[in-house]
């Protein structure tokens, strides 16, 4: 019997070796290890054996079974791996075909610029204030040292609704409102972004509606050099560390002295080229020291308090920064324009 068992083992292992499919293995398992298999049959004949022989043969039979089973398992694992490999191979796709698109939106260029400006000034301790787009004549003009018959009102022809109400021509009324709210009780450090309106015929460089960001800082002992320092930091952060600024005298009714700020030309670095019309400088914003009458009208003692204010046009900044050649692009919402500025910075 011993010989028979060993013979069966050799035979079975040889078949396992030959097997090439999982079904072959299953057949071998049934054939050799099944209840009707030859090993079971051998064991059935154990009753004829002596007491001493029985455990020996029993042990051998188990060893043979284990050897066959283990070899079957090994082979099965091997064949399964091959089969999986084949199956996966068959599942190959063309990875170069385009993916299913995801709809992506993005911000308007003006919003991006305004938020960038907001964040720069927030970083310098400014808060953001907003106000109505339909203003009273008082806040839009009078509180800013532009009484009714002031000749400088010609400078900003306005859209009136009634004699006392108009579309605001700048966001400065928000400053007057904020100061008026505090009535000289505390410093003001704010910027006010928003839409403004002027009687201009829309063309490449004019728009009856545009955007402004104005800033105001009122405190005890605010100096003109602070204005220069703050604007310098702002300009370098927005346009690049290599850019220089310069201030030159100008005139606004609500500031005295008034300044205009230029930055050095990106193209020629101040040497003069066609972009800067040969001057080496590009005008960016206007500002100045808050006019004492504006402070007084809002309840601030102009001997104790001083301040600076400034204002800029995000459209102009966008045009300079990105070379946008027509202000109307900001309002026609041409998708080919809008998407150009959706790329991450």
């Amino acid at each position: 019997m011993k010989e028979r068992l060993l013979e069966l083992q050799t035979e079975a292992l040889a078949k396992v070796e030959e097997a090439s499919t999982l079904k072959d293995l299953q057949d071998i398992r049934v054939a050799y290890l099944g209840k009707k298999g030859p090993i079971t049959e051998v064991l059935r004949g154990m009753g004829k054996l002596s007491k001493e022989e029985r455990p020996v043969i029993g042990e051998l039979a188990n060893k043979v079974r284990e050897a066959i089973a283990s070899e079957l398992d090994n082979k099965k694992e091997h064949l399964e791996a091959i089969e999986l490999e084949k199956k996966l191979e068959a599942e190959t796709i063309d990875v170069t075909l385009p993916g299913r698109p995801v709809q992506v939106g993005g911000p308007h260029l003006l919003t991006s610029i305004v938020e960038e400006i907001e964040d720069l000034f927030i970083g310098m301790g400014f808060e953001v204030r907003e106000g109505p787009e339909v203003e009273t004549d008082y806040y839009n003009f009078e509180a800013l040292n532009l009484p009714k018959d002031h000749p400088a009102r010609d400078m900003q022809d306005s859209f009136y609704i009634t004699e006392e109400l108009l579309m605001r021509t700048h966001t400065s009324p928000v400053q007057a409102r904020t100061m008026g709210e505090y009535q000289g009780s505390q410093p003001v450090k704010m910027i006010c972004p928003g839409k403004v309106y002027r009687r201009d015929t829309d063309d490449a460089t004019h728009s009856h509606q545009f955007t402004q960001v104005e800033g105001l800082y009122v405190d005890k002992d605010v100096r003109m050099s602070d204005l220069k320092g703050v604007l310098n930091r702002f300009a370098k952060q927005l346009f690049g560390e290599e850019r220089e600024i310069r201030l030159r005298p100008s005139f606004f009714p609500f500031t005295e002295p008034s300044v205009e700020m230029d930055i050095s030309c990106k193209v020629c670095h101040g040497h003069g080229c066609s972009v800067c019309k040969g001057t080496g400088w590009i005008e960016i914003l206007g500002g100045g020291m808050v006019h004492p009458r504006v402070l007084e009208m809002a309840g601030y003692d102009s001997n104790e308090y001083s301040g600076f204010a400034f204002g800029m046009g995000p459209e102009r900044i966008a045009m300079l920064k990105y070379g946008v050649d027509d202000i109307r692009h900001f309002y026609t919402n041409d998708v080919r324009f809008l998407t150009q500025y959706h790329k991450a910075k």
Partner: protein
Amino acid sequence: MFVSLNWLKNYIDIENISTEDLAERITKTGIEVEGIEYIAEQSTNVVVGYVKKCEQHPNADKLNLCQVDVGDEELQIICGAPNIAQGQKVAVAKPGAVLPGNFKIKKAKLRGVESNGMICSLQELGIEEKFVPKDVAEGIFVFPNDAEVGADALQLLNLDDAIIELGLTPNRSDALSMLGVAYEVAAILDVPIRFPEENVKTAEEQAVDYVSVKVEDSDANPYYGAFVVKDIEIGPSPLWMRNYLIAAGIRPINNVVDITNYVLLEYGQPLHAFDFDKFGSKEIVVRRAQQDEKIQTLDDQERTLSSEHLVITNGQEPTAIAGVMGGAESEVSEQTTTVLLEAAYFDPKVVRIGSKDHGLRSESSIRFEKGVDPNRVKSAGMRACQLLSQYANGTVLSGVAEFDELDKEEKTVEFSSSRINARLGTAISNDEMADILRKLNINYKLNGDTFTVHVPTRRQDITIFEDMLEEIARIYGYDNLPYTLPQGASQAGGLTDLQQLKRDIKQYFESAGLMESITYSLTSQARSQLLVSPEVKEKAVTPVALSMPMSEEHSTLRLSMLPELLDSLAYNTARKQSNLAYYELGTIFLSEQEQVTKQPEEKLRAAGALTGDWITHPWQQEKRQVDFYLVKGILQGLFETLNVTAEYKQTKIDGMHPGRTAQILVGGTSIGFLGQVHPKLQKDFDLKDTYVFDLDLDYLFEIHKNEPSFAKIPRYPSVSRDIALVVEEAVHAGDVQATIQQAGGELVKDVQVFDVYQGEHLEDGKKSIAFNLLYLDPERTLKDEEVEESYQAILYAVKDAHDAELRG
């Protein structure tokens, strides 16, 4: 203001600085130089020639054959100008000359005859047509007889000049004169000023013997001076004066008119010359015009006046509108022999009203409107008399007939150097400040560190401390100010919660696939009525309109952003861009008044408009058009972000599809709508199916509660049950859902529609809606009986409310 540098050189020395450097320094010190023009930058080789002989071209009627002496040679030149004549001195471009436009002069043959050069008109030399004097406008320019043959014609015509254009801010009207500019440049360069000649030998006769002056409104006219110059010979003014006028942008007329214009530019003081013999009387009366009084002005227009206007009269009739324009009747002409010269100070407001009402803005009115220098009024008159005597052969009568109540006193302003330094952030010494004042030609007294400044009357803009602060700072140089940062207590800047929320909402829309757009707030009257959300329509009585719009297109304040958004979509589709998903955050203007008297309420809203394909993925045959439920899904996501629960109610809105529009409510309050644009309106905009939404963000911001609090993760299993109900077609799923939610009780945590079916196996006019119900008690495991009980209650309720049957 155009400033001829050759002219400016009469008053100050600017030889040592290049034009570009000078312009740069003027800009940096106070007045922006907007441009520099070199009139004949490229021209060369044009000289004065003497026409020795001039005869008809043998082969051409309209051409002349001239022999021209140009000093070193004699040139044969063919000339077609009608005014060419023998004995003239003319401008000759010699062969090899270059004229503006890079036009090169070469030897040529014209109709078989040689021509060696060109005799030039002023236009050909680069002077704008409108400034060319009328007598030489149709032909060549003719020099006065004293021009030297062979001399540089460009120089004689002042074409070697550089003209700088000053962009004057309203405060710097002092620079509306050559003398004012001279003061400014003198301060910058620290050079002395040479003043014009005002002295003239006068006749025995007195001006007051010829004319008297009476002013009835001394506020409107505090000074009126009348000079009399007789024996005038009208003729051309000297070449140099004509050149300067042309450079300044004024066309030369004759010596008298040119002199008044010249002094206007030199002193900044407008003058007016009347023909004394046509004045109509020997008395000048300045008064307010009578209602509907008429005057024929110099431009031959009849003007109707009112008491708002100030007039110069001869005691009877108006002879000029003060500071605006003279009358035609008393205009100086070729026959004039005696000139009555007005030098006056008119109140700026009166002149502004006059020039505005008659649409006449002139070099004179501009200056009066800004306020002229009280101390220069009379001297300008004297300067004109001096020039009339010299260049019009006039005899100046002594004295002036005048009315004078003009305040000519210099005002004082006080400042301490320490306060200046504290305000500028500088450490400028008293000596430096004193030196700056000296450069500015401003007198002062210094006491300790306090300066008492006597402000020259030419600088009417200086009235307070801050004005002197500016003067000191600009001459000191803004470049020299240090860079500092504010010393005040620093505060944390930042966005308010609402500002942050606004940014978050923008970001939500963008990640949901929408593009931000910005449209105009001003729309047309017609558009303002379209696509208005119910809660806006209820409140806004009428759209707010501009009182004087520039166009109907932008005449009315919007009640919705949608019409202009549709316009943006249309703009794109017209350019073959048809898949668009836009949103905008902006303000609408809501007035509850029929006649607006107070500021309209400004509401922040979010609107969106989508059209075309949402997803196109052709090779896998996927294509999804924008539809109602896409837009609704985007809004649902927004409400989830804001943690608010919205309801949707079928509704009808002007301009919207009547069957595909939903009003959105939160807690029973209308906050906006969504739906498809009415196909008729889509067609008006040339759009395919377009879906829109419009939401009241202010209200959403007000009610949203975004304090995320921790909710325990349930430890007990939930039970899911499906229920399919058959209802009438018209029954809304949302209503059934609400009934289920209510009837199911607290255990029902969620109800979702998962199928809607209509067709085979169902009766006509019926549909089946399948819901998935989620039961959960976070504290314990649910019993089957409880769920079943609730389920039965639901079935009963939907049968009762919607006649819904369980689908078999």
